[in-house]
């Protein structure tokens, strides 16, 4: 049967799939570069250079310099690398908690499910930042405080998703049959649940990181987070506020922009991976 406009369809196919893979590659490269920039730069650029204070952005100093003459781009990269690593760590803990509880709620059902769901609801009843501040304060602040606070608060969304996915798989016919045929729960978990749960887990995990990083930055900005001696982006921004009326805008705006780009990279990465794994949600 003659089907018209064949070349047009090949062009579309090239665009969409290649675009998704390209986006994934680009984002991953960018993020890896940020994290590894720490290794390459070592400790250069963090010491005061009093002869170059308060210079606006130029070709020499892309992000300008601060009141101590430190290159802002270098500082920002250090800070970003730190923030990303802290965020990754906290988010990973969160993911483990979330997946564990989500799986437990979905498979064990009954009272366990009810209790876990109720706990999730309680967490959702408080504004996220208030909860973070509370926990960080209780644990004593600092890097430890941030990691624990973020880890203990970000697991809820992931738990919900995993729980929903697990429930759906569990109640499906072929799993019921497997149970009746005498397969052990472990076997079922490996062969039936995991293929369904893993894509959601992967996407959920990737999308968890940007939230963790943003919240770590927020806590540091307020002063309950990372130590003020580190160049974390939140710290840089809060320092920039002290010199606000001097008009040296690049000290606050540009580092924040870097943070924005990193978070956006994570989000884009997550969305594209989701598109690859589950085309239904991205048919539009």
């Amino acid at each position, binding site marked *: 049967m003659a089907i018209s406009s064949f070349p047009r369809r090949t062009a579309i196919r090239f665009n969409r799939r290649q675009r998704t893979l390209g986006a994934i590659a680009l984002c991953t490269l960018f993020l890896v570069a940020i994290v590894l920039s720490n290794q390459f730069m070592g400790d250069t650029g963090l010491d005061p250079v009093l002869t170059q204070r308060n210079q606006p952005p130029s070709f020499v100093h892309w992000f300008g310099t601060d009141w101590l003459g430190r290159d802002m781009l270098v500082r920002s990269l250090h800070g970003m690398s730190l923030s990303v690593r802290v965020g990754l760590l906290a988010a990973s803990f969160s993911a483990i908690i979330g997946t564990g509880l989500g799986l437990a709620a979905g498979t064990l059902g009954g009272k366990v499910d009810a209790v876990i769901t109720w706990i999730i609801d*309680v967490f*959702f*009843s*408080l*504004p*996220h*930042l*208030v*909860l973070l*501040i*509370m*926990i*960080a*304060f*209780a*644990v*004593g602040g600092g890097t430890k405080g941030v990691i624990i606070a973020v880890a203990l608060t970000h697991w809820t969304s992931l738990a919900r998703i995993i729980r929903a996915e697990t429930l759906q798989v569990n109640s499906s016919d072929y799993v019921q049959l497997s149970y009746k045929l005498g397969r052990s729960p472990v076997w079922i978990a490996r062969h039936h649940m995991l293929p369904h749960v893993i894509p959601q887990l992967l996407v959920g995990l990737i999308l968890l990181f*940007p939230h963790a990083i*943003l919240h770590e*930055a*927020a806590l540091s*900005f*307020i*002063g*309950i987070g990372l130590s003020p001696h580190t160049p974390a*982006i*939140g710290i840089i*921004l809060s320092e*920039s*506020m002290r010199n*606000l*009326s001097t*008009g040296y*805008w690049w000290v*606050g*705006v540009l580092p*924040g*922009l870097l*943070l*924005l780009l990193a*978070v*956006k990279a994570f*989000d884009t990465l997550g969305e594209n991976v989701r598109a690859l794994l589950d085309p239904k949600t991205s048919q*539009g």
Partner: protein
Amino acid sequence: MDMQISIASFILRKLFRLALLLIAVAIFSFVLISLSPIDPIDAYVGADMLQVSPEQREIIAQRWGLDQPMMTRFGLWLGQLASGNLGMSMIFNQPVSAVIGSRFQTSLQMLAIAWVLSGTLGLAMGVLAGARAGSWLDRIIRFYAYTLASSPTFWVALLLLIVFSVSLKVTPICCATPLGMLTKDVTFWQRLHHLILPAATLSIIGVANIALHTRQKLIEVLNSDYVLFARAQGETLTGIIRHHGLRNIILPALTLQFASLSELFGGSVLVEQVFSYPGLGKATVEAALRSDVPLLVGIVFFSALFVYTGNTIADLTYQIVDPRIRMGKST
């Protein structure tokens, strides 16, 4: 009559859940503070103790159960909270309830404006983007929304502060009122002048989320069977949105609006910090930084109440507005 009974039972159920929630928050807070270097009872009593005479100290010691085991102290503490005694704020030297009351009033003006603005603008943008999905308008709106959703709140606030207060000098750099003026002398317009930038910041960020979700809902509606049938009858896109679109997204939109209260509260913590706006958000930060436990715990309770009320109202609107729930499924 039926409807009144069902609303009454609904409210009762919600109150019960609220009680459970508050107890959970209480346990949670107590445990957390106990884990911290600070003893919760000391914190409450300490603030009280500063003010009083030795005889009253005895009374207070008894009231808070200073030398009793943990569970009893928790019980007594809970009792105090339940009867409205949230303790004394160290920083402000006032009862916590008074502090929360006055600071919330200040925040409320800003929050209310931001809430309304982000709701209406978000709805409009979401409808526009969803109706013209795939067009350049949709792309622009989506780019804006996604970018803002990934932005640090305090950075956006800083950006606006730099542009409008430092460079253009059209808005004040800080605070809710001009410095050095007596409260009663401050005019309405001056207040407005001071809260416009914080409110705008919160709105700009809040719009993003609402726009994205509204857009998604509208796209779902436009892909539904009944819209297909409407098209089969000759309805144009504008007609569809007018007669079917708005009707079917208004309930999800309301839920979204009330759910955004949580984010708004969190955002206000950061925004008030940047603009030095003396609201509840800034008070939260001060309480945490200066270890004012009664105030911090009080704010946690208050925020839980605030968010819960918002969600309950959203649920209630569903009960009232959706005819399927209102009249009960008879099929």
